[in-house]
């Protein structure tokens, strides 16, 4: 901590200065030369990070993710003398509230979290209240491997410009996993899903909101069911009931046909995997296109499962890493995040045997051998039926998350 307070204000100011000039230039990132100007600064960061402990607050419900972070911790310790501690939370929301509570209590240094894994609403809450440190994204040496033009969701989080206050860590898209042993032709729209479920009751369900995959399912249904999906890009207004009426009509019809007749719902999307393995469900939802392959490798799913998305595409986004303003180990947090977006760490993360989370890096910016490895990995990992590129729908305005969750609880919690 002492090390940190000594070296830190200077680098922070330099970063600020740099990003301000960068914003004036408009293109977020253009030349590699910008990076070289900062090698000295980066060396300072590396020095400051030595011996620091980073508390990374990240969802701990998946063994693969936990093991991956365990590997990262070992490497960080060996290479940079940074101690990464994975604080496993079952929901990131309490961490957000803790940062807010710390701010209210005047705990402006020595905060309890150093890295938070988040996106969307949680990012907006922290960012709009000035509770994040940064901008720092573009000063990370490995930022050069990210191409916002190819992957727009790496710099726009649920419609909110990121402005370097968080760094993309992985890509996500809502996918449907189904067991070919139970279903021959999966439904490819919400309407088809309803008629399928009416014919085959009990085989489908979705995680109960506010689980984020459950909420994404609601958003996906809303986008598909309403005539004017562009409306969702703007904040919720007085017309909430009118806009969402098709969704509730649809769910009222769908619920009696669901698993357990819609009286209970799984707690999370991963809980659906074991239900598919048991043959209780024929479908699982995931936010990770590689989940099916990873599940097969882990012995969690039968090798008869395949992945698909709906005809018009499905909602996709990126998930990010951010540093709270009162972190006591900002330098080590930056070193950690830089390591986590390095080609080596990202390729490992994308490996379905390890985790199977798609990379945020752009193939065109990688070294030839990394490019090749990525291509091979993608080919081996895919469990998609057809090889046509899948369409990504943009997330609705973050306002909708809370409104939909509250309305859902009011309607379906008896």
């Amino acid at each position, binding site marked *: 901590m002492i090390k940190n307070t000594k070296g830190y204000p200077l680098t922070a100011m330099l970063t600020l200065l740099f990003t301000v000039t960068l914003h004036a230039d408009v293109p977020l990132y253009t030349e590699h030369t910008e990076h070289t100007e900062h090698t000295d600064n980066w060396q300072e960061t590396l020095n400051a990070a030595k011996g620091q402990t980073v*508390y990374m*607050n990240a969802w*701990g*419900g*998946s*063994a693969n993710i*936990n*093991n991956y972070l*365990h590997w990262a911790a070992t490497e960080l310790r060996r290479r940079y003398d940074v101690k990464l*501690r994975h*604080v*496993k*939370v*079952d*929901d990131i*929301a*309490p*961490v*957000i*509230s*803790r940062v*807010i*509570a710390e701010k*209210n*209590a005047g*705990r402006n240094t020595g905060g*309890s979290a150093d890295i938070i894994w988040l996106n969307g609403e*949680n990012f907006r*809450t922290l960012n709009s209240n000035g509770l994040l440190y940064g901008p720092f994204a573009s000063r990370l040496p490995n930022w050069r491997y990210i191409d916002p033009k190819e992957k727009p969701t790496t710099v726009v989080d649920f419609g909110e410009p990121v402005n370097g206050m968080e760094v993309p860590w992985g890509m996500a898209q809502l996918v449907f996993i189904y067991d070919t042993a139970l279903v021959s032709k999966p439904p490819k729209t919400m309407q088809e899903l309803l008629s399928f479920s009416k014919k085959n009751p*009990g085989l489908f369900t979705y995680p*109960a909101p506010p689980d984020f995959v459950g909420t994404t399912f609601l958003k996906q249904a809303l986008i598909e069911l309403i005539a004017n999906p562009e409306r969702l890009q703007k904040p919720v207004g007085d017309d909430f009931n009118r806009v969402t009426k098709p969704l509730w009509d649809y769910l009222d019809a769908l619920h009696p046909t669901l*698993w*357990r*007749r819609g*009286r*209970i*719902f799984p*707690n*999370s999307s*991963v*809980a*659906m*995997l*074991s*239900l598919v*393995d*048991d*043959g*209780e469900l024929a479908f699982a939802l995931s936010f990770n296109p590689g989940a099916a392959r990873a599940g097969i490798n*882990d*012995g*969690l799913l*039968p090798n008869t499962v395949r992945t698909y998305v709906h005809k018009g595409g499905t909602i996709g986004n990126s998930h990010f890493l951010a540093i709270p303003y009162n972190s006591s180990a900002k330098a080590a947090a930056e070193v950690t995040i830089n390591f986590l977006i390095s080609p080596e760490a990202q390729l490992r993360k994308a490996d379905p045997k390890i985790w199977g989370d798609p990379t945020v890096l752009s193939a065109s910016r990688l070294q030839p051998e990394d490019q090749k490895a990525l291509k091979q990995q993608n080919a081996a990992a895919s469990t998609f039926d057809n090889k046509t590129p899948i369409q990504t729908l943009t997330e609705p305005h973050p306002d909708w998350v809370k409104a939909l969750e509250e309305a859902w*609880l*009011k309607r*379906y*919690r*008896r």
Partner: protein
Amino acid sequence: MINSTSTSTSSYAARSYSSRWAYLASRGVYVIPWLFPLLTAIGLAGIILPAFGWLPALGYNSFSLAPWQQLLATPGLWTMILTTLFTGVGATLLSLLLTMVFLISSWNTRLWKLTGRTLPPLLAIPHSALAIGVVFLLSPSGIVSRILAVPMDWLHPPDLLTVNDPWGLGLIFALVLKEVPFLCLMLIAAVSQTPIERLLTTGRSLGYSHLQCWLKLVWPLLYPKIRLSVMIVLAFSLSVVDVSLIIGPNMPPLLPVQILQWQQDPDPALALAAAAGALLLLLLVGLCMACWLQLEKVLTSGLRGWLTGGYRGRSRSILITSGRLLFSGLLVLAWISLIVVVIWSFSWRWRFPDIVPSDISLRAWIRFFPGMLEPLQTTITVALTCSVVGVLLSVFCLEYCHRLSRWQQRSIVFFFYLPLLLPQMSFLLGIQTPLVALHLDGYWWTVAACHLLYVFPYCYLSLVDPWQKYDQRFSHAGLILSGSRVRTFLKVKLPMLISPLFTALALGVAVSTALYLPTVMAGAGRYETLTTEAVALASGGNRRLLALYAVMQMLVPMIFFGLAIAVPRLSSLRLSSLRLSSLRLSSLRRNHSPPKRSTHES
């Protein structure tokens, strides 16, 4: 006078040292009656003030009723309250009833002795591990349904609500499995203090049937002795969080779970609603206890006619046999569910409807064990620290509390048990509020201190009996010979009580290992134990991993109980072979056979 001068000076030094020590301790003991009420007051203030809108740490500086309005606007609040009451009271009633059935049907039989031996390990297993076992047993893809699959011709698990059901029946079952052993052990202790044989003989000679003897003569004497335990069970069942997260209803969840979710929500207004909910829960638990005690009175006066009416009853051996079957069935189910947990931790592929895994391997252990070391370390260090401190405190209280007035003693004992009698969720939320305000949360020692609140009463409870049965004449003899209270205590009293002391230590470890909320509330998410990890994993999909954590949860207390049995034996062996005075000591010990055991064997 036979002593040489050197020994007499050393004994003088020891005496003066011991008297100074004793003096300080005797002063210190007057702090205790005030310590626990203070803590309770802090805990109460920590929920009452925020419940009425005052929580400066989150920027709420004025009183209002808004938290209550928010609480009342919660979708499904009434369902939540009713289900909480139903599961809590239902589990307590059922457990008490089954305990009674056990007593009446199997007292002095082989089952009774077997139970006395098999229950302690079952009791040492954390609730959450047992709940995980019950899920593996009863869920639609569980063992029971796999066994039924062949005769019923099920290709897929049946679409039935057996766990996480809206009525909380699965939860009640898991709670009963855990609470019956607790009540039975308390009952076995109570039985050893009651002249049952004589009562039964008298009853029978007057022509009362076996059942009537128990109900009319023995039970009214026994029940008051386990009333406190029943109240603990009631408070626990009404406010349990971890078991409920694993096997309880989730649409809506039970009130304590909802409070935890509010408390963890980023919206600070919900922190106030959590406090209001915690106060509501406290009132509910208080109300239930009051009703329970009132009902006891009503029953006692209402049944007086039946008790003294002279109805002799007929012999109903079928009732006795079925009671015995019911009870042993319950024990067998508990053990099966634990065995299933162990099997799951070694299975890689185990699909429905296979009764045994199709792929048994050590892969899960090899792959996930390294990640488990950290929670394991936290679990053991916290548990050991708490139980050592808990036992030391208990010994201190047992040695010195008799100096206090009777009124003070009684209030102390009441406040010791208070953490067990208050709903955990309410009490801990109340303690957490000042902790957060003072930035004291998220430290290892805060977690350990919160564990101590729950570990200490159990350590104390388990030591009261041996301490009372200890024959003071040994100490008198020691005092005459050594002239030092401290040396007498260390060399005579402690070695004789070494066995109960180690049991208390192991009990402390078991209690601490099982705790979920104290770690979550005081640890600010920074400290994970096996239990918090297992509960978090229960919502995930990896059963091998979940089973692995549950197995470790069981192993830790079992290992410590094993040590508690082995270490005193070894040390007493060494004692008798090394020490000159051993001859006298061991002969003393042989004569000193605790009355508890003698009634046991009679």
